[in-house]
């Protein structure tokens, strides 16, 4: 085929894991489709980072510009439009991350390149591209074909592909291209990073976590899970909707936009298991999940599952734990 472009993602000097995940998949695709893998990195003072990419890619295109202090999708769009138009790659890949979500659709629309987002699989048959995605928060998968084009664009879900360092480093050639940006991007400007407020609880060091999701339905029901956590000596944490609704503070949020945890026990209550949550807890030692829907994705990650109304089963578990903990006379 032609070239495969992978856009590297970096923040505060660090190349992000998603980049190596995509490069790993892209290497495999380059081999099966007989394509040439090109990594692209844009930013300010990023020569060192470009070297890391050359282990994976045959060519690394580097554009440095003092005007690219933080991420700016308009600056990226301008530079990538030029590179894509010149090189005509058959595939452009980037992460379905806060950066990819900002950039990919706009770039695709500007160049009229068909785009499939948040892909968990992709497959070429000749020059036809089929992608796998998820619908309804991961409850259903979809296979879709992308309309035929000279160039396709995809964004890849985080942690979909496992990073494999090449056995033989690719020793890619780093080609620095002068920045085509003539002036500052006027319409949109990065100001600063805003750090999360430090909360009162450190959920990452807790041994036992009881986690609550949307299934709890109302803030008045929070004590149901709170009491179980207390009986277990566990800390109460939650999935995103609970923080969005203001029912628990953001320092208790587990998932991609919260914290990653690895306790000895993770008891998930009323959590369906969208990947944003799962990525934050799947490496826990023991996972027990309670959910009404037997097909909830969380059961694909749990060791034990209970399909039951949480309002019935959670108080029963709490009572049993208190009973078990009582010293026998």
């Amino acid at each position, binding site marked *: 085929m032609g070239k495969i472009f992978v856009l590297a993602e970096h923040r505060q000097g660090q190349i992000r894991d998603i980049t190596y995940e995509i490069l790993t998949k892209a290497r495999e695709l380059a081999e099966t489709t007989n394509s040439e893998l090109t990594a692209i990195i844009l930013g300010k003072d990023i020569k060192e980072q470009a070297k890391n990419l050359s282990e994976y890619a045959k060519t690394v295109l580097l554009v440095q510009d003092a005007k690219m202090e933080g991420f700016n999708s*308009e600056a990226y769009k301008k530079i990538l439009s030029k590179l894509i138009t010149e090189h005509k790659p058959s595939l452009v890949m980037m992460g379905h991350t806060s950066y990819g979500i900002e950039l990919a659709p706009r770039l695709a629309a500007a160049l009229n390149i068909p785009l499939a987002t948040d892909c968990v699989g992709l497959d070429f048959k000749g020059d036809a591209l089929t992608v796998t995605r998820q619908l309804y928060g991961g409850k259903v998968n979809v296979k879709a074909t992308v*309309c035929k084009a000279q160039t396709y664009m995809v964004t890849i879900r985080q942690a979909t592909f496992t990073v494999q360092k090449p056995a033989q480093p690719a020793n890619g050639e780093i080609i620095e291209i002068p920045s085509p940006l003539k002036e500052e991007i006027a319409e949109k400007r990065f100001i600063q990073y805003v750090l999360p407020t430090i909360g009162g609880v450190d959920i990452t060091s807790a*041994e036992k976590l009881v986690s609550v999701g949307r299934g709890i339905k109302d803030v008045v029901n929070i004590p149901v899970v709170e009491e179980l956590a207390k009986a277990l000596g566990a800390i109460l944490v939650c999935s995103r909707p609970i923080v969005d609704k*203001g029912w628990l503070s953001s320092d208790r949020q587990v998932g991609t936009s919260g914290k990653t945890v690895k306790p000895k026990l993770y008891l998930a209550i009323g959590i369906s298991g969208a990947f944003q949550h799962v990525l934050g807890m799947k490496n826990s030692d023991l996972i027990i999940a309670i959910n009404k829907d037997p097909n909830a994705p969380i059961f*694909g990650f749990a060791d034990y*599952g209970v399909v039951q109304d949480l309002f019935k089963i959670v108080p029963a578990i709490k009572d049993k734990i208190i009973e078990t903990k009582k010293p026998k006379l």
Partner: protein
Amino acid sequence: MDIIVCVKHVPETTDAELKIDPSGKSIETAGLVFDINEWDDYALEEAVRIKEKEGGKVTAITIGPKDSESTLRKCLARGADAAIRLTDPRFEGSDAYAIAKILHSIIKTLHYDLIFTGMQAADDGNAVVGPVLAEMLGIPHVTLVKKIELSTGTAKVNRELEGGLEEQIEVKLPSLFSIQTGINEPRYVSIMGIRKAMQKEIKVVSLVDTGLTENDVGLAGSWINIESVYMPQVEKQAVFLKGTDDEIATKIAEILKSRGLI
């Protein structure tokens, strides 16, 4: 401050056990409750709050058949001033790109200072419509917006990055923001609001009024064509604990005890 909010009428599936439709290309929607997409709910609320502070007009727009009017009614009840529904049998099969084209066809005829979309839709989770629409309109956009501070001609917005980090961006208006959940607390709708909303007119627009052709919309105008929808294979399956509540609780207590967790 005139604000356009693009909303989608979607099935509520969090607690539901989903089944694949006989066509193999979608889920069975019979028995599912449809409502405003969660992200759009926050977007509408944010628009109404800005209007209440700054004045102006909020217009809610959706694409969909007659039953999606309930989502527009909800927007009107919450404080939207006008509502438009784009509908046509030929819109069927439109992906996010085609949807953006349809929205663009009407929005380019309206006055706006801001356009809001949800960051993504709960059903297909593309996160594509907003930025594509902004590109078509030639205005800047910011996705994953968690905070908006308006000044004259510009806005400072916080957008969500990973791990709780945010970045602050300054952007010129008019602009399009895709709104992330948690930006505000959407209000409950009062009975009065619902009554008033029932009387408001919803403007209906079909393909002929958009200036688009049938090749621009539906499958012909889309990037993505759904081949099949199926239940995902799981890597490992949980051991399901069964029995009465007491039996299940006993088993869980035993598991925890055997691992020294209680």
